[in-house]
């Protein structure tokens, strides 16, 4: 990855998308999602919470695999899901840091991304980043809006997380992967919403969560753990030793 502030001088001759393959996403074991994405993401992914390594703060993520090696949804060059999280679709665009003066629309771009190509190159055309006059194209402007939405939606998810933590609803998940030879690997660092704990929440908290639309989100997140079985099947569709059983439980606390 090589992030640079978006600028017509440097990027005027570039176009983006579609991606030739999913190799960039294959390096990801999870992808952060926002509050509004929950309704779509539960069609495909287990939704869990993980701690940011630098800040210790929880983030809501769609789980793409149970190891650090990368996504199990990418199979035979195809993404095995109906919904693709915004955090993948926004590729290769990022929000430029506060210090990046002159970044077009406040954007930065990953110059090493396989989604980028030169306008004059042969092959699929893609969307140019800039018009010939140096102004960002409509496609680039749409990406800027997407990223702004993504940021707001991440803040909304953080607000939900805050309430879940306060209500003691986030619980460490214990996942044991059993291999055919009896070997067991444990997955650490994942947290989920304990449905039993959710049922015990005081009336006033339940009502407040319901009115804000967050109670439904909480239930959806809790129910999404059923997709762990899908993850297991996706894993087993690949090469390597299959996982014969996943044992999932909430750690006592």
């Amino acid at each position, binding site marked *: 990855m090589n992030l640079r502030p978006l600028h017509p001088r440097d990027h005027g001759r570039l176009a983006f998308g579609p991606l030739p393959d999913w190799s960039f996403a294959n390096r990801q074991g999870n992808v952060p999602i926002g509050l509004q994405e929950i309704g779509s993401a539960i069609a495909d992914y287990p939704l869990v919470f993980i*701690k*940011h*390594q*630098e*800040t*210790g*703060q*929880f983030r809501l993520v769609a789980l793409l695999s149970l190891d650090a090696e990368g996504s199990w949804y990418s199979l035979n060059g195809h993404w095995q899901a109906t919904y693709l999280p915004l955090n993948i679709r926004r590729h290769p665009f990022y929000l430029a840091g506060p210090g990046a003066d002159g970044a077009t629309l406040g954007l930065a771009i990953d110059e090493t991304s396989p989604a980028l190509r030169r306008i004059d190159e042969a092959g699929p055309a893609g969307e140019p980043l800039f018009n010939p006059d140096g102004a960002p194209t409509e496609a680039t402007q749409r990406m800027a809006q997407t990223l702004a939405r993504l940021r707001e939606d991440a803040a909304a998810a953080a607000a939900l997380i805050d309430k879940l*933590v306060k209500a*003691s609803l*986030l*619980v*460490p998940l214990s996942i044991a992967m059993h291999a055919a030879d009896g070997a067991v690997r444990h997955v650490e*660092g994942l*947290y989920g919403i304990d449905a039993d704990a959710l049922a015990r929440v005081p009336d006033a908290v339940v009502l407040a969560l319901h009115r804000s639309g967050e109670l439904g989100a909480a239930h959806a997140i809790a129910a999404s753990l059923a997709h762990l079985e899908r993850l297991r099947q996706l894993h087993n569709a690949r090469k390597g030793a299959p996982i014969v059983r996943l044992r999932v439980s909430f750690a006592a*606390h």
Partner: protein
Amino acid sequence: MDKPVKTVIIAGGGSAGWIAAGRIAARNGGALPDGVRVILIESPGIGTIGVGEGTWPTMRNTLRKIGIRETDFFRHADAAFKQGAKFVQWTTGHSSDGYYHPLNPPQGAAQINLSGHWERERREKAWRPQATDFAYAVDFQADLCEAGLAPKSITTPEYAGIANYAYHLDAGKFATLLRDHATANLGVRHIQDDIVAVHQDEATGDVTGLTLKEGGRINGDFFVDCTGFASLLLGKTFGTSFIDRSDTLFCDRALALQIPYESEDAPVACHTISTAQEAGWIWDIGLPTRRGLGYVYSSRHIDDERAQETLMRYAGPMGKGLTPRLIAIRSGHRASFWERNCVAVGLSAGFLEPLEASALMLIETAVDIIADRLPTSLGDMPLMARQFNRSFRHHWDRIIEFLKLHYVLTKRTDTAFWRDNVDPASIPQDLQDKLVLWRCHPPTAADFSHQPEVFSWPSYQYILHGMGFETDYARLPAVRVEEAAAQRWFAAADKARAQTLRDLPRHRELLRKIRDYGMQPV
């Protein structure tokens, strides 16, 4: 008639008063309509001593039980992590002289006693130089301290640790945090007034109430004396005698000083540094905001002026222009701590030099008993008092012996203070007996009778071996029989050392992250 305990009155604030108030109210429904009423009376004119700035790991449980989040504690009490103590120049007084008493027990302590194995390994094998020290060989925490690393990371949940830990804190800010929490969330009533009279039942002697200067009379059923050195209830009202222990522990003065760091990102020590001096020792406690220093000394061996010079020399340029505060201390404790319906918690019960941070720990130990088993009626009290007094006489004796252990193992003969400290007349008989036994047998749980013991046998091992106590454990059968198991535990220490030195953050960096982001409860 057997009068039920409905109202608990705590006389005095400070760390003792507010820990007692918080724990008793949280445990006994202080905020519920039918719960126990907890009232704390604090004199606006009397300050706190505020030198109790080091805790034990027990404080993590105490805070959790009071219902304070660890993040809030760090932010409001200017707290830092403490992973043990480093004792510098206690053994020979040379510049290279130092050893650790970490809070982690030796690896495998529940299954194996590593003292004898360490002694043999040290003799027979070419270990890395540091591992000739017991603490470095049997555990990894001394390395964390030496490297300035924290005992956990920002992703570790509140109150959980990768290595065991306690805290350093600002005692004044800590009391304020406890007060705000107790009054806002636990139903504790806070009265700021002076106590001018204590009323007793003429027949039984039970305290029935207190008269306040402004607020008139206030009645209660059970009284907790947190009045500090004044010891208003146990000392003044019941006339319980004070047992002076300065024949064993000579220090009777402390000069305390707070100095700033040289820069905002200067490292914060993750352990208490105790450096022996000609007539006592200097504590050095790192908070994120400042360093707390203090010279604890014996006025029979040096005068105040000389002590101040020594402290200011230790403080260096950052102490320039600052004047230390003199605190007179008296090593010893009350003959009893619980009389009728009054129990002393904190300095009103006694005081010992803060060499092993026993002050706050003794408060917690007392409050654990009181809060978890609050007397339900006045009729409960005589038996509970007897039990409590027996336990605490035991605890004070053991703590005094453990503190004395740091002095009796010295090889220093450079000043009268150190020479006097090894005079057998100053060493409790029980400690003398144990020292004879420990030449041939390492300390184990069997050496101690109370469950739980405040200082357990691993602590004794860290001090004995840290100070080069001469032992002869090679002949012990277990050293041969358990050799393979011992090797596994030494290897476990090595593995944990490599992993924690690689993964754990610098202490100041973690303190900054806790301030900026906070820790998660899970």
